[in-house]
């Protein structure tokens, strides 16, 4: 059996796990990150949503999410933000700094953006990749939405129809759509993104769009403009078309979330973090209130990993951090108690503004992110819980998934970095 020893073991490769590892290694800890799969970050929009709407008027977008989160913390002390709000601003700075170092540029305007989606809705978000930073649509005079005939996941007409209903456009704004034809066969977002990195292919795209471009035009694309980091497909398009080019959020697979994941993983590797993907933790050795180590199955190889501290960043149901049967929900690695609403896992209305209760299920923690039992007693002193593993957050409605992951991952990394000093 292979044995590994480390200061910090991070379990999970989503945003919170990646941030925890990044912050821990920045404090000179030896960090090992193991994950069963690639994490849910790649499925996300790629933007960092902090908080979308006003607490008192949930149909109104809030401009300053940091101020709104400050209100939330006093209203709803069981919300994960209540445990991590103290580090929220510094976690944002840390994130922006890492992004900058790893050639993936995020913009921060200190307020919520309202970005168009492929459905033509607007989504409030806080930190935005340069490629998605669409300017205020009310100011735009010429808007062109470009789709690809081979891509079945993006429909310019749908976007435009709903955009007109969902946002006040300028009185003289012209909306146009265009379908680019590249190949007869069907292409998924990743294949298309890969092809667009090839100059000849990009030239074909440019030649089809160019005749429709007008001065000052804003051109929206599906989120497929390049797969690898450092391939500046958006910039090249923008330069050659002579207009502003952006990607909009869409259903997975979508590249902006994948690129962020790649950038953060790249960062960890350059900082000396060992990352093992395809590695599932199968058992934990617990004595008293401490986890001494875990057993993991890495693509068939059994490993014993001992660590001083561990960060549990395995996500909710989607990530596989929580598993469920008809009458029971479990935390998958340590079997920690999961806070649920008994008998009320879901609501009749799928799109209910109150959100589906099951999103809020998770592990209860204290301010040190240590897991608690229902009496409020710490269960494991050297295990910290982050991201979607945390109880009390309804991210699809609140628009705070990546924000909670960012701040809680950062805080866990900071706490484990300080430990043992």
């Amino acid at each position, binding site marked *: 059996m292979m044995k590994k020893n480390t200061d910090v073991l991070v379990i999970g490769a989503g945003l919170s796990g990646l941030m925890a590892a990044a912050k821990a290694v920045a404090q000179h800890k030896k960090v090992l990150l193991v994950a069963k799969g690639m994490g849910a970050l790649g499925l996300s929009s790629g933007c960092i949503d902090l908080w979308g*709407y006003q607490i008192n008027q949930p149909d109104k977008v809030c401009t300053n999410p940091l101020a709104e989160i400050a209100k939330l913390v006093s209203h709803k002390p069981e919300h994960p933000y209540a445990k991590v709000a103290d580090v929220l601003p510094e976690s944002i700075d840390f994130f922006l700094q890492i992004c900058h170092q790893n050639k993936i540029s995020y913009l921060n305007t200190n307020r919520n953006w309202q970005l168009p989606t492929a459905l033509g809705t607007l989504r409030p978000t806080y930190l935005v990749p340069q490629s998605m930073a669409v300017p205020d649509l009310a100011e735009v005079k010429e808007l062109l939405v470009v789709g690809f005939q081979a891509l079945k996941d993006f429909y310019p007409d749908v976007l435009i129809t709903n955009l007109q209903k969902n946002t006040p456009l300028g009185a003289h704004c012209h909306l146009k759509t265009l379908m680019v034809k590249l190949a007869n066969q069907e292409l998924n977002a990743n294949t298309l993104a890969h092809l667009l990195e090839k100059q000849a292919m990009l030239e074909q795209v440019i030649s089809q769009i160019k005749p429709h471009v007008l001065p000052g035009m804003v051109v929206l694309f599906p989120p497929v403009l390049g797969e690898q980091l450092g391939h500046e497909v958006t910039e090249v398009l923008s330069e050659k078309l002579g207009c502003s080019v952006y990607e909009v959020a869409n259903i997975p697979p979508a590249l902006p979330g994948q690129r962020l994941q790649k950038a953060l993983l790249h960062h960890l590797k350059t900082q000396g973090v060992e990352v093992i993907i395809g590695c599932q933790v199968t058992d934990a050795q617990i004595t008293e209130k401490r986890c001494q180590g875990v057993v993991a199955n890495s693509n068939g190889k059994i490993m014993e990993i001992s660590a001083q501290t561990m960060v549990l960043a395995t996500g909710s149901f989607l990530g596989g951090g929580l598993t469920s049967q008809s009458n029971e929900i479990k935390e998958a690695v340590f079997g920690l108690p999961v806070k649920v609403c008994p008998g009320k896992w879901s609501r009749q209305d799928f799109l209910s503004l109150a959100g589906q209760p099951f999103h809020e299920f998770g592990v209860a923690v204290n301010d040190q992110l240590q897991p608690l039992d229902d009496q409020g007693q710490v269960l494991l002193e050297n295990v910290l819980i982050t991201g979607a593993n945390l109880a009390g957050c309804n991210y699809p409605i609140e628009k705070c998934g990546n924000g909670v992951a960012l701040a809680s991952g950062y805080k866990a990394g900071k706490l484990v970095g300080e430990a043992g000093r």
Partner: protein
Amino acid sequence: MAAEKAQVVVIGGGATGTGILRDLALRGISAILVEQGDLAHGTSSRFHGLLHSGARYAVKDKEAARECLEENMILRRIAPNCVENTGGLFVQLPEDNAEYADQWLAACAESGIPTEELDPRELRRNTPVLHHRVTRAFIVPDCAVDGFRVLWSNVNSARRYGARLYTYHSLTGIQQSNGKVTGVELTNQLTGERKYIECEMIINSTGAWGGAVAALAGIELNIIKDKGTLVAYNHRLTNQVVNRLRPPGDGDIFVPHGTITIFGTTSVTVNDAACTKPGHGEVLDLIKIGQEMIPDLENYRLIRAFAGVRPLYQAGNTAGGRSVTRNFALVDHQERDGLQGFISIVGGKFTTFRLMAEKTVDLAAKRLDVTAPCRTAEESLTSPVSEQWLERGKRVFGIPGAKKAADRLGDSFQRVVEEAEKNPDQRKIFCECEVVSLAEIVHVAGDGDSFTLGDIRRKTRMGMGTCQGTFCSYRTLGALSGYSQFAGNHREYLTKFLQKRWKGIRPVLWGQQLREAQLSSAIYCSLFGMERML
């Protein structure tokens, strides 16, 4: 406006009603079928999809058992693409009454149902998913049947002989004069428009709605409405239909359909014929019983739950549930109530729909002085897709896609393949779970019989698979946004699509389906902000 005319108006587009329409048409009687929703929107699509061998009824009702066997053989012959000849098993567990097996064997023999005993050790080898404690097992000629396909095949066959169909029309009035039916008043459910049809006869084949239809003629007809909940597993758990060898009860039949398995059912008397909401508690009860046969049942992935209302009829009896006969009754209201030209066909089961139709039309023909004999058992319902067209289909949709589309589309397959050959763009697979191409969606959207999104969904099966519409609901919005009747309002289109799926997912919301639901919620709320969309 001059009223439309037909000799017979058939009310109810389920298995029986469409069977009657076909039988009438084949005997040269002019007929119109009226259905309040889409074809099969009621019980004919909300059952196991089991084509009984009759073995289930052998002990209690040999006559019914014999009828099942005969009809089973007929349907295999006339509609091979609607039937999957899986064969069936009856298995007994130690806690079941051992004597019942012998009684059942004797009854099957008497009804002419072939049975073959299987060594339990061999059963364990062939079907390891079943409990190792099975004491006795028998093979019977059960099959899986696609109810929806049978119904459309009935209508398409009837149309070739001039029959007409009005879906989304509900019966709002029955006109009579001097004790004779003279016509019907219909209301279009989508537009509110009224329509009148002059006719000599009305056949009420509305299943659980039978009492309500008879009431329009001022006649009392007592139908017991018995709700059964079923679940669909995302696996082909067994290759054969599996029945529990004991007196019929809840949760004792598994039916494999392609890659999934339907398991049920329960039996609860309800007041409303439209009560098709499956309950979480009922699902848990079902699984508990099912675990006696398949111990690992709770660990398999469920896709959704659904419920149908069985119409049970027993003249002058108020008993309900499983004690009421599954046999059918033909009610001649001329004799019973003195209303000429009104017939009700009630009770029965899917397997014997053709026979029910034959008996009903025998009576109708007698009253109408028509002597032509029934031909529905002889003439094929559908012609199978030719090898040549299947090959061409495989080249545009891939092998699984072509096979599935050929089964779903039957006679229209050729046209869809031709379209996809001409427009490579339409070869894209929009629903990956059920392998539905854009060409098929476009074809169905324009076939003249599709009025709502649900119609397209039922005909193509898009959104019916593992992801339950998470991906294809958005994609098909793109594909159908050009059709104002389906997707005029995008928010409404998506909400309806997702909400319909949610109704079936909620009672089975755990395990992988809860994970899938979180992904769906993440996409539509987190990514698209649809909960606040205008």
